[in-house]
C-alpha cells in the first residue's frame, strides 16, 4: 500500500462524520452537566464537581488531562524520528500514576476538604494563611497555563486540519474564509484552513467548557480517554500484521540508517502558462551516474506560471539500501505518488544527520539518531532529566492537583491509581511499537513526522479494509488535545474568579454574579488563547516544555512540603516558589543568549527542571528554618487531631 497521499483522503466524509458525532456528544455532556449546576453550590460544582468523582471519572480525567495532544502527535513523531530509544525517554511512565496521584493525593484532598478549597491557590492561601501567597500562586498559574493553552489550541487546530483537509465541504469553507480575510492586514499571513479549524475547535471547546464546567470536562475526558485507548489497541495488531511481526520489523531496523535532508531544484521541461503544483510527499527517482537515488519532497512546491523551475525544495533521501530498492520498484511501477515525468530534479544541497548517519541499527539503540545534535537524541544526562520530568514534574502540575482535590474518598483513589497504571501501560509502550513499525510501512516521512499519527491510522485502517476506522483513530489525538485544553481553561478561569475576585476583592459576591463571572472568564480566557494561536510564536514545543517544567519548579516544593512538613512556613514556601520560578527562567534566558532562540541552557547537561526543583526545595527548607516557625494554631489545624 502506498503512502504520500494526504492523510485522510481514503475516508474524508467518514472523518467529518466522526468529528461531528464526537462534537455533538461533547455538547450533550455539557448540557447534562449544566443541569447539575442548578442543584448544587455553583463554584464548588463548576470548578470541582463538588468533590464527587468516582473511580472511572477520576481515573480517566486524570489520565486524559495528562495525556495531551503531545502524546498522540509529538510522541509518535519522536518515535518515528528516533526509534526505540523513545521507550527510555518515556520510561518513568512506569510510575507516573502512582507518583502523580499517590504522593499528594490523599493529603491535598483532605486539606482541601478541611478548608473548603476549590483551587490550588485556595489551598496555598489557606494552608499558609497568607492571601498574598495565594495571589502569587494565581499569577504564576495564569502566566504559565495561558501560554500553554495557546500552544494547545494551535495543536488542536492542526490535528483538526489534518482530519478535515480533504473534505470537500471543508475546502469550500476554507476558500470562503480566505476570501473573507482578504484585505485584513492582521490575518494576512495566516493559512485560512488553519484559521477555520482554529475557530471551529475554539468554539467547540469554549462552549462546552463554559456551559458545563468541571463535570462536562470530566465526562468528556472519560469519553476521550476511551477513544484514546481504543485507538491504540486497534492500531497495535494492525501495525504488527502489516510488518509481518515484530521480529521481522526489528530485523529490518538493523539495516536502517537515517535519511539525508537537503534541497533540490525542480524544473519543468518548458515554461507553463499556469502554475504547477508539486504535492508534498512526491517520490523522485534520481539517476545519478551509475547510482539511483530515491528522494521525497517534504513540502508542497509551486512552479509559478510563466516560469519553469523552483529552487530550494526541501527533500529527503532514503539511505537504507533495502528500502531504497523497494521504493525504486514502486516508483517505477507508479505505486506511489511520483514527480510528473515532465519535471526533473537536481540536488542542490544534502546533509547527513549529526548523529547516526551511516550507522545501521541506530534506530534500535541509544542515544538514537538526531538531525541536529552531535550527542544523539537522548544522551545519558537527558535520559535522567526525562525520568524526573514525567513522574516528578507531572506531580507538580496544578491541573493534576485540582483533580486530586475532586475524588470522593480513599477507596476511589486506590482504584484509580491502579486503573491509570493499566491505562498508561496499554497506551505508551504500544505506541512505541506502532510507530517504530510505521518507519517500515510509511518510509520517508521524517520531514512531516507530525502527521505520522493520522497517516498511520489511515494507512492501517485502509489496509485492513476498514477505511471508516481512520476517522475514529484520528479522533484520538484530537480528543487528547480537547481534554487538556478544557482543563486548562477551567484552572485559569477559576484562578481569576475565585482566587483573585472572590477571595481578595469581593468575598460577599452573590452566587448569581459569581456564576456569570465564571462563564465570562472562561469565554474570555479561551478567546485570549485563540488570539494568541492565530499567529503563534515559533519554538512552540520548547515553550510547552518551559511551561510544564516551570509549573513543577514553582509548585511542587511548596505544596509537597506544605502537606508533609509541619515546620514549613509562608516565608519558606514563598521563597521556594519564587526561587523555583526564577532559577528555571534564568536557565532559559541564558539559553536564549547562548543559542539565539528560545531554548533551555542545560547546566551540567541537566534540564532546567532539575535545577528549578532543587532550588525550590532547598529554599523552602532553608528559609523556613531561618525564619520564625509557623503559628501553632495553623500547624495544629493541618497536622494534628484531637483525641
Amino acid at each position, binding site marked *: 500500500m502506498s503512502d504520500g497521499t494526504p492523510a485522510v483522503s481514503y475516508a474524508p466524509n467518514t472523518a467529518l462524520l466522526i468529528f461531528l458525532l464526537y462534537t455533538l456528544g461533547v455538547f450533550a455532556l455539557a448540557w447534562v452537566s449544566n443541569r447539575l449546576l442548578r442543584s448544587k453550590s455553583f463554584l464548588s460544582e463548576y470548578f470541582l464537581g463538588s468533590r464527587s468523582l468516582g473511580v472511572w471519572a477520576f481515573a480517566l480525567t486524570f489520565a486524559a488531562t495528562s495525556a495531551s495532544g503531545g502524546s498522540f502527535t509529538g510522541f509518535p513523531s519522536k518515535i518515528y524520528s528516533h526509534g526505540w530509544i523513545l*521507550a527510555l525517554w518515556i520510561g518513568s511512565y512506569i510510575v507516573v500514576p502512582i507518583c502523580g496521584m499517590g504522593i499528594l493525593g*490523599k493529603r491535598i484532598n483532605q486539606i482541601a*476538604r478541611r478548608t473548603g478549597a476549590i483551587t490550588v491557590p485556595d489551598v496555598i492561601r489557606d494552608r499558609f494563611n497568607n492571601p498574598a501567597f495565594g495571589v502569587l500562586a494565581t499569577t504564576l498559574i495564569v502566566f504559565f497555563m495561558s501560554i500553554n493553552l495557546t500552544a494547545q489550541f494551535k495543536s488542536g487546530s492542526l490535528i483538526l486540519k489534518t482530519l478535515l483537509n480533504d473534505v470537500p465541504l471543508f475546502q469550500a469553507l476554507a476558500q470562503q474564509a480566505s476570501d473573507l480575510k482578504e484585505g485584513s492586514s492582521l490575518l494576512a499571513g495566516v493559512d485560512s484552513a488553519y484559521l477555520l479549524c482554529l475557530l471551529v475547535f475554539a468554539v467547540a471547546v469554549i462552549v462546552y467548557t463554559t456551559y458545563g464546567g468541571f463535570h462536562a470536562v470530566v465526562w468528556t475526558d472519560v469519553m476521550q480517554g476511551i477513544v484514546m485507548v481504543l485507538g491504540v489497541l486497534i492500531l497495535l495488531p494492525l501495525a504488527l500484521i502489516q510488518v509481518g511481526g515484530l521480529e521481522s520489523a526489528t530485523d529490518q531496523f538493523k539495516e536502517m540508517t537515517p535519511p539525508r535532508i537537503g534541497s533540490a531544484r525542480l524544473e519543468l521541461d518548458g515554461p507553463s502558462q499556469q502554475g504547477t503544483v508539486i504535492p508534498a510527499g512526491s517520490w523522485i527517482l534520481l539517476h545519478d551516474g551509475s547510482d539511483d537515488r530515491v528522494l521525497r519532497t517534504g513540502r508542497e512546491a509551486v512552479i509559478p506560471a510563466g516560469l519553469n523551475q523552483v529552487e530550494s525544495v526541501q527533500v529527503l533521501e532514503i539511505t537504507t539500501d533495502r528500502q531504497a530498492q523497494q521504493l525504486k520498484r514502486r516508483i517505477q511501477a507508479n505505486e506511489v505518488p511520483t514527480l510528473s515525468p515532465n519535471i526533473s530534479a537536481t540536488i542542490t544541497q544534502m546533509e547527513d544527520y549529526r548523529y547516526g548517519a551511516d550507522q545501521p541499527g541506530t534506530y534500535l539503540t541509544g542515544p538514537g539518531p538526531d538531525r541536529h545534535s552531535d550527542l544523539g537524541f537522548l544522551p545519558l544526562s537527558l535520559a535522567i532529566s526525562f525520568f524526573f520530568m514525567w513522574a516528578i514534574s507531572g506531580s507538580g502540575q496544578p491541573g493534576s492537583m485540582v483533580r486530586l482535590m475532586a475524588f470522593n474518598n480513599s477507596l476511589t483513589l486506590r482504584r484509580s491509581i491502579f486503573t491509570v497504571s493499566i491505562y498508561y501501560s496499554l497506551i505508551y509502550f504500544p505506541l512505541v511499537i506502532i510507530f517504530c513499525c510505521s518507519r517500515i510501512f510509511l518510509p520517508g516521512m521524517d520531514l512531516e513526522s507530525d502527521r505520522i499519527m493520522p497517516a498511520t491510522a489511515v494507512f492501517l485502517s485502509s489496509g485492513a479494509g476498514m477505511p471508516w476506522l481512520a476517522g475514529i483513530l484520528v479522533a484520538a489525538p484530537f480528543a487528547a488535545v480537547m481534554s487538556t485544553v478544557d482543563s486548562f481553561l477551567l484552572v485559569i478561569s477559576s484562578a481569576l474568579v475565585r482566587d483573585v475576585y472572590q477571595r481578595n476583592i469581593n468575598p460577599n459576591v452573590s452566587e448569581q454574579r459569581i456564576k456569570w463571572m465564571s462563564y465570562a472568564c472562561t469565554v474570555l480566557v479561551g478567546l485570549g488563547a485563540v488570539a494568541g494561536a492565530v499567529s503563534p510564536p515559533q519554538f512552540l514545543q520548547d515553550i510547552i516544555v518551559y511551561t510544564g517544567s516551570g509549573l513543577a519548579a514553582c509548585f511542587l516544593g511548596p505544596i509537597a512540603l506544605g502537606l508533609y512538613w509541619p515546620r514549613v512556613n509562608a516565608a519558606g514556601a514563598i521563597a521556594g516558589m519564587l526561587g523555583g520560578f526564577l532559577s528555571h527562567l534564568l536557565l532559559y534566558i541564558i539559553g536564549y543568549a547562548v543559542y539565539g532562540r528560545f531554548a533551555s541552557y542545560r547546566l551540567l547537561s541537566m534540564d532546567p527542571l532539575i535545577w528549578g526543583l532543587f532550588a525550590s526545595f532547598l529554599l523552602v527548607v532553608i528559609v523556613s528554618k531561618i525564619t520564625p516557625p509557623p503559628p501553632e494554631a495553623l500547624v495544629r489545624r493541618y497536622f494534628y487531631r484531637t483525641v
Partner: protein
Amino acid sequence: MSSENRALSVHYEYDPVFLHSRREAIIIVGVWALGLLWSVPYCYLRGYNLSPQEIHTIWGIPSWVFWGIGVPWIIADLFTAWFCFWYMSLDDLGEEQENPETLQGIERSGETRLESPHE
C-alpha cells in the same frame, strides 16, 4: 515541656491521615528512585552505541528495552496493584466544611498552645 502543657498536649496527636500519607509518599518516591536507578543505567550500559550484531531481541523487542523498560513496567504495575489494594490506608478524608474555621477563630477559642514537636 511543663507538666501543665504535658497534661494538655495529650489532647492532640498527629493526624493519622498525615502520617499514613507521608509514609506512603516516601515509599512512592523510593520506588520512583529505584526505577531511575535501574532503567537508566541498564538501558545506557546495555543499549547504547550497539552495532547491529550486538542487538538481541526478545519477542522482537530489543533486549535492553525488554529488560530495561518492559519488565520494570510490569513489575511497577504489580507493585502498584499491591500498594493500592493491600498497603495504602483507607483513610477518612473528612467532609467538606461549609464554614471552615479561620485561624483567628482557633486562637480566640483559648486552646492551649502546643509545644513545638515539629522543629
